[in-house]
């Protein structure tokens, strides 16, 4: 009504004003609304990004759980009594018998139509490849990126990029993992496109929520970078040659490229000086660090029998401590730093190794949870102190009986040497048998168990077992370890039924026929009874503590009761023939006493360079101190043509079980592998047993050391998707999981999750 009363001109102005006011309000409201919506949209996008990050993280961790569970399932399916066919994880692709895999470290990867042998669980890979099949938004993972851990040999060994080889695999996927599609129902394999993957409706359990791809590498078959490496100047030839620790592996024995190049020892020494800074009292500045010329610090540290190498020493020097490669990224970063180590070496080095230091060989009803510590042999010294009497009986079943001086009479009485009496680990009655045991045998029970495969009462082998044990003791103790009454250095053990003797080449209680005949210190008519067995001129005496169980092979092996009659060529414990009955000894004794330790290598490693490093520098002859050089160590590891089936690696080919070519189930197989090395190191028994001395202490088979490389992508298939590659990636996460799984129990001993930022 008011409006109609206004003049036309006024009405027009008022219309315009009203329109302007309304428009202004609208603009204001629209502005506020747009700003608010924009703000919330931005916040939502940021939140969504954060959500996708968390989602891909959850996906990656779930993927790792699934993969580890698959390995545990594989163990459960195979049973806890491993055979050669299933002691290790099944490999895919499966290498041909007697061959070396194209990628030695690769155990398996997610792959379509997975033909991995039972009892392994299929990877559930779908027909879409992480490298060759780009996603809808153009994302793929190059082989170079898959190899940022450098565990696959490099294609171009002259630069530092992670470009891997592709030989042995077909284009365009090569060895790149296929994607495992994760649906609402979990991971599932798809060989072709399924429209349900993109159907987000509520009841569809096939709707894809993400995908992951993975590869698993044998990190347990690598040398642990936290342990290996020799300083320069190096310890003496004999110190390195006696081995006993993976730290004494000689990396210069490794062929780290196809052309045969070897690591630079100066760079290795610098790394040792960086890593064991306080222990080896390093000088200089990074990267030109140098250990102290006195190598004893290095040796004392790595030959410490109680050190498990899972943590660094507490030693302080220069207000600094030792270092440790805390993860693989740090190892790679150090190699690529100004220290300039060859990245070609990285394929042979790991940062995470664990071993449950327990035997794998078993017989009868025995249940052994730990190995016998070789160092306990130091207890068995004639006329022991009262403080060690109880331990000697506990660990050896022996009691010392002091000697009795003889007299010329009349009537004449012979001198009785101080000797040991075999009572078993409990009781005070002299035994006529090796007693039965179940869980914690003493030394002789364990020897008898190893050589004769029985843990029941054994009257048959008591003489040979006690004799061999005595010979081992004589090899271990020094020449000063003598009976104070008669001076005899030979270990004599009295049992209910006779005497068993060790063997010493030098025994002052024994008349020496040569080179200068000397009379018996106990002449008739009294004499001495019993007397030490005759010496053998060719018998090698160590007269020092053992560095590894392989050195038991120097001990004389008595064969029959009652009187030992050594031949000119003494038979010693056999660690060099494929079917040696003595071989289980290698698995039942240990130099290092840690229950779980780092630094040991899986005996079934497919890396010849790793075995070569462990062999190089090992003493072939205790008398001449000659050692294994570069070529023999490599030939023993993997013999070149024309003998492709000779060598340690070829003889442990997984899944190709034959008489001689099969995975090692335990350290007892080292004897078979020594046989496989044939005469590549030497033709004598001592030379052949170099393989046992070099490998037995530093290898294992019972723990799977895996590096699981997983890339997980959260995202979805849009409604327009028509192939398995049409995935829209919303978030991505990559992890390296280092995990150690006990093959016998299926338990995860230890693990380390390493987040990867490419």
């Amino acid at each position, binding site marked *: 009504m008011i409006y109609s009363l206004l003049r036309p001109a006024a009405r027009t102005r008022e219309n315009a004003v009203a329109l302007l006011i309304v428009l202004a309000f609208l603009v204001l409201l629209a502005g506020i609304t747009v700003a608010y919506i924009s703000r919330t949209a931005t916040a939502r996008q940021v939140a969504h990004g954060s959500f996708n990050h968390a989602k891909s993280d959850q996906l990656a961790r779930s993927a790792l759980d699934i993969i580890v569970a698959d390995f545990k399932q594989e163990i459960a399916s195979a049973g806890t009594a491993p055979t050669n066919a299933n002691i290790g994880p099944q490999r895919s692709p499966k290498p041909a018998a007697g061959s070396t895999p194209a990628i030695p470290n690769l155990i398996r990867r997610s792959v379509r139509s997975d033909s991995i042998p039972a009892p392994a669980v299929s990877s559930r890979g779908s027909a879409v490849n992480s490298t060759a099949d780009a996603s809808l938004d153009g994302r793929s993972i190059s082989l170079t990126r898959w190899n940022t851990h450098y565990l696959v040999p490099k294609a171009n060994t002259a630069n530092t990029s992670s470009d891997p080889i592709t030989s042995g695999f077909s284009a365009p996927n090569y060895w790149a993992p296929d994607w495992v599609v994760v649906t609402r129902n979990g991971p599932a394999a798809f060989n072709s496109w399924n429209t349900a993957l993109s159907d987000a409706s509520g009841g569809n359990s096939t709707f894809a929520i993400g995908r992951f791809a993975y590869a698993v590498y044998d990190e347990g078959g690598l040398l642990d970078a936290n342990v290996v490496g020799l300083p320069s100047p190096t310890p003496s030839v004999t110190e390195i040659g006696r081995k006993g620790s993976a730290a004494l592996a000689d990396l210069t024995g490794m062929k780290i490229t196809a052309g045969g190049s070897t690591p630079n020892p100066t760079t290795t020494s610098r790394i040792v000086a960086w890593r064991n800074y306080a222990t080896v009292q390093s000088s200089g500045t990074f990267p030109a660090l140098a250990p102290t010329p006195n190598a004893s610090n290095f040796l004392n540290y790595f030959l410490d029998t109680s050190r498990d190498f899972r943590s660094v020493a507490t030693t302080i020097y220069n207000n600094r401590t*030792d270092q440790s490669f805390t993860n693989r990224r740090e190892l790679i970063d150090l190699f690529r730093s100004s220290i300039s180590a060859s990245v070609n070496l990285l394929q042979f080095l790991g940062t995470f190794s664990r071993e449950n230091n327990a035997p794998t060989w078993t017989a009868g009803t025995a249940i052994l949870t730990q190995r016998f510590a070789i160092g306990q042999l130091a207890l068995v010294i004639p006329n022991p102190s009262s403080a060690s009497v109880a331990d000697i009986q506990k660990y050896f079943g022996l009691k010392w009986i002091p000697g009795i001086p003889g007299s010329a009479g009349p009537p004449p009485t012979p001198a009785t040497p101080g000797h040991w009496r075999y009572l078993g680990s409990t009781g005070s009655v002299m035994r006529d048998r090796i007693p039965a045991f179940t869980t914690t045998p003493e030394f002789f029970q364990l020897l008898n168990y190893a050589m004769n495969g029985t843990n029941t009462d054994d009257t048959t082998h008591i003489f040979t077992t006690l004799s061999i044990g005595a010979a081992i003791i004589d090899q271990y103790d020094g020449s000063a370890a003598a009976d104070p009454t008669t001076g005899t250095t030979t270990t004599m053990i009295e049992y209910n039924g006779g005497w068993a003797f060790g063997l010493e080449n030098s025994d002052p209680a024994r008349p020496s026929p040569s080179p200068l005949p000397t009379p018996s210190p106990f002449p008739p008519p009294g004499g001495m009874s019993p007397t030490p067995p005759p010496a053998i001129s060719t018998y090698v005496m160590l007269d020092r503590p053992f560095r590894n169980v392989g050195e038991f092979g120097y001990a004389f092996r008595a064969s029959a009761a009652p009187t030992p009659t050594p031949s000119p060529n003494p038979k010693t414990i056999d660690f060099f023939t494929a079917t040696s009955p003595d071989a289980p000894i290698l698995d039942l004794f240990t130099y290092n006493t840690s229950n779980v330790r780092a630094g040991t290598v899986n005996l079934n490693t497919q890396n010849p360079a790793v075995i070569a490093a462990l062999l190089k520098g090992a003493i072939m002859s205790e008398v001449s101190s000659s050692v294994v050089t570069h070529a023999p160590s490599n030939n023993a590891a993997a013999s070149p043509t024309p003998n492709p089936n000779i060598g340690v690696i070829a003889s442990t080919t997984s899944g190709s079980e034959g008489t001689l070519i099969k995975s090692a189930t335990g350290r007892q197989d080292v004897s078979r592998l020594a046989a496989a090395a044939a005469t590549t190191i030497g033709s004598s028994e001592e030379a052949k047993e170099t393989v046992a001395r070099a490998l037995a202490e530093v290898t294992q088979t019972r723990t799977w050391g895996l590096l699981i490389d997983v890339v997980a992508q959260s995202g979805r298939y849009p409604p327009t998707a028509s192939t398995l590659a049409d995935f829209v990636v919303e978030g991505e996460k990559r992890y390296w999981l280092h995990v150690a799984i006990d093959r016998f129990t299926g338990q995860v001993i230890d693990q*380390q999750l390493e987040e990867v930022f490419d």
Partner: protein
Amino acid sequence: MRQSNNAFTIVELLVSIAVLVVLVLLVGRLFTSAATVTTSGNKRMDTDAQLRPLFDRMAVDFSQMLKRSDIDYYLKSSGNVQAGNDQIAFYSTVAGYFQSSGSQSPVSIVSYRINSTSGTISFNKLERMSKGLVWNGVSNTETPIVFLPFTISSTWPTATNSNSDPDYELIGPYVFRFEYYYLLKNGNLSDTPWDTPAGHSSVDGMQDVAAISVSIAAIDPKSRVLISDSQLTTLASRLNDFTTSMKPGDLLNQWQTALDGTTDIARPSVSAVRIYERYFHLVPKS
């Protein structure tokens, strides 16, 4: 001359004005409500936006925390009770600020704290230090990661105290209360990072810790200007420390109760305080 008779009666005008007033009031109320909602939403978004990257940063730091038995951690525990705001320091393989001319290693020392030094620009704000460390042996003056027996407090004291350090960054400018505790693998919540009933008495590479729970109180920027530093300090002091006897959710409930019961500080400021809690699950130690 025709006389106009189109004028309004007073009644009509009064009714019109009354209707207009009602309409204006209604629209005004509507606008006020809308403004309140958007302001509140904006404040929440401001706080959320501030906390999101902070929690993401913490997630990365914690996930890359070195978990080893041979390195030191600076953590609250029965032997290191931290009243009020907490402080945490540990080694992590995240990239850190690196001011050295030497070679940077992939390891950093990471620390979180509420700055408690009044008068500084970061007072009552959450700071994060990520100090990049050199490789071992780079020089005699720059310290690399050191293992036990060296402790973090003896090697990098500023990571464990309130002193200034140029490597601290302001990561939570409106976070004024920082508290953390542990979810142990035995399922219990604890203010000590080890399983005492299991006979453990040291952190040992976080072997017993399944997750670290971080509780934070933050205020949005607009509300922050309404409250003084001393009032914020007072407010923070009223937010209890975690104790082992608490059950899940107890801490935040107590904080909310304390905030609701605060009457000596401007209500709009107190009601703008938001509290958050997040669990950071740790992977097993190596």
